[in-house]
């Protein structure tokens, strides 16, 4: 009976691996074949000349360029908001907080990490409703609001990776700095943060990838189809993931469908390479510390 079960489990494992790899293979193959056919300069710039679009003298009508720019702005803005905040919170939780507050904040961060992304979008939407009712009747959704909500979405990733990277350091490092007469801050800046930098960087990369791919948040906070490149922080905008979602339902011509496949392939390559980079950094850390003797103080 036991023998049968474990024999069955072996075969089931092979089957599960085969089915998963098959599904992923078909998925990537389908998108790759359809998407590669669409990857060319026209995909990005439409009928306009690339140089003139890049110099800003001509709008890229019908190309992906505005969506790419929108995603770039979103990622930059939300990183600007979330990265300093996230790393600072991570440092506080790892090195400064006493057990009580640490447990409380840890719970809050875990909760924030588990909240569905559409609720971040709903939060932004509700904020605008409230502002309209009270102090800013002309408030509207736009680029800055989306970036703010995305920053909230990626904040827990940054906090958790920073905290884990600092807490994972060998205790000898901490003691070495203090024994040289460093203050806690000097110890942090000159010893602990450099040692934890790879882990923190992998968290930053994950956060950027997450901000670039999320659709549900921007769906409720100011993304529109066919917006040009945004001119100000409160403008409506368009972004790659939304463009893909929109074209999947609303494509009118074969050209638009090809563009959607091209955009989907590009977004997949972008986020997959970011995630691979983050994992690579992480695996590197494990290797680096593998042979370091840990002397407990």
């Amino acid at each position: 009976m036991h023998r049968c079960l474990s024999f069955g489990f072996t075969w089931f494992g092979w089957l599960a691996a085969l089915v998963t790899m098959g599904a992923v293979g078909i998925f990537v193959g389908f998108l790759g074949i359809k998407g590669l056919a669409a990857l060319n300069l026209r995909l990005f710039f439409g009928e306009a000349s690339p140089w003139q679009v890049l110099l800003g003298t001509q709008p890229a009508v019908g190309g992906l360029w505005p969506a790419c720019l929108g995603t770039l702005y979103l990622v930059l803005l939300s990183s600007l908001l979330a990265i300093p905040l996230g790393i600072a919170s991570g440092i506080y939780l790892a090195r400064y907080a006493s057990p009580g507050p640490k447990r409380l904040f840890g719970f809050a961060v875990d909760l924030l990490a588990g909240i569905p992304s559409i609720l971040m979008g709903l939060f932004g939407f509700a904020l605008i409703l409230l502002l309209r009712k009270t102090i800013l009747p002309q408030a509207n959704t736009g680029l800055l609001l989306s970036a703010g909500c995305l920053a909230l979405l990626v904040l827990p990733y940054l906090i958790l990776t920073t905290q884990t990277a600092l807490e994972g350091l060998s205790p000898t490092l901490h003691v070495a700095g203090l024994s040289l007469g460093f203050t806690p801050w000097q110890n942090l800046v000159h010893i602990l943060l450099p040692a934890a930098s790879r882990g923190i960087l992998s968290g930053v990369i994950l956060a950027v990838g997450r901000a670039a791919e999320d659709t549900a948040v921007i769906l409720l906070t100011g993304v529109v189809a066919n917006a040009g490149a945004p001119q100000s922080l409160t403008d409506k905008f368009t972004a790659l993931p939304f463009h893909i979602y929109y074209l999947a339902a609303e494509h009118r011509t074969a050209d638009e469908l090809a563009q959607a496949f091209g955009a989907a392939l590009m977004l997949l390559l972008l986020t997959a390479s970011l995630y691979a980079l983050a994992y690579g950094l992480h695996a590197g850390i494990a290797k680096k510390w593998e042979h370091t003797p840990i002397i407990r103080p």
Partner: protein
Amino acid sequence: MASGQNPLADTGAAPSLRRAARRETLVRTALLGATLISGLAICAILGFLLYFSLPLVFQGQAGEILAWRWRPFQGDFGILPMVVGSLLLAFSALFLAYPVGVGLCGFAFSQQHHPWGRLVLAVVRLMTGVPTVVYGFVSVFLLVPLVRTWFEQGTGFCWLTAGLTLSILILPTIVLLIWSQLEQTTPETRLAAIALGFTPSQEVLWVHFPQASRGLAAAAVLGFGRAVGDTLVALMVAGNAPQISTSPLDALRTLTAHIALVLATDSTSLAYGSVFASGLILFATAAAVNLALRRLKAPPP
């Protein structure tokens, strides 16, 4: 380490030391401030959902929202079909993905020194980086036509298609959590199992899985949370009809898709109310998932 107890702060120590002590206080305050902002964000999200959905309760409209019919033009604003839709879709995705995830971990464990095992794990890790919108997009053009032609019924935008797509989405979450548990097994346990003549499969089944039963449960809970919270797959391929699905070929609408759909169109205030009530239910689900994970992570009593 607290600066309040810093012996250098109030003594006649050298100015440079006093400056350093002051800087410590400053740094500490700044870091605390950043952490407080993160904590406030959570409170703000919950506060907004409550602020916008509680008036419904006090004005006696809760009964209209917690009803079985969604026909906004006839004045029916019930969200219960969407609650059922969310649960049906999440559980079916979990039902499909969980056994595959467990099997995959067994495979990866027995082949962990073989390139195949490492390749499978690497692919699963990369799957976490696939944008949800891309899963939805490929499903619309690959799986939907297949389901439509195989079953020769409906449009192909249905529970079955969404469940299959969602199961691929949550698979890496499940696999990576179980794998992290398998990695924590001590060398002593492994050696003992091998010395008793266990094959890798027997070892996983009879030694490591019973040891990691809490991890196995946590993987199911986390997978469920991820499935309930997903918006794009449900929105793009589930068909979005606000009804109770009885067959896998029926369309269904989840709470997340409901929020996106209602806010995309201009709506009346009661429709907004239903959106915030949906948000509150989703928040409560996320919080429950989080609490369950905490209990499972804590050392057994």
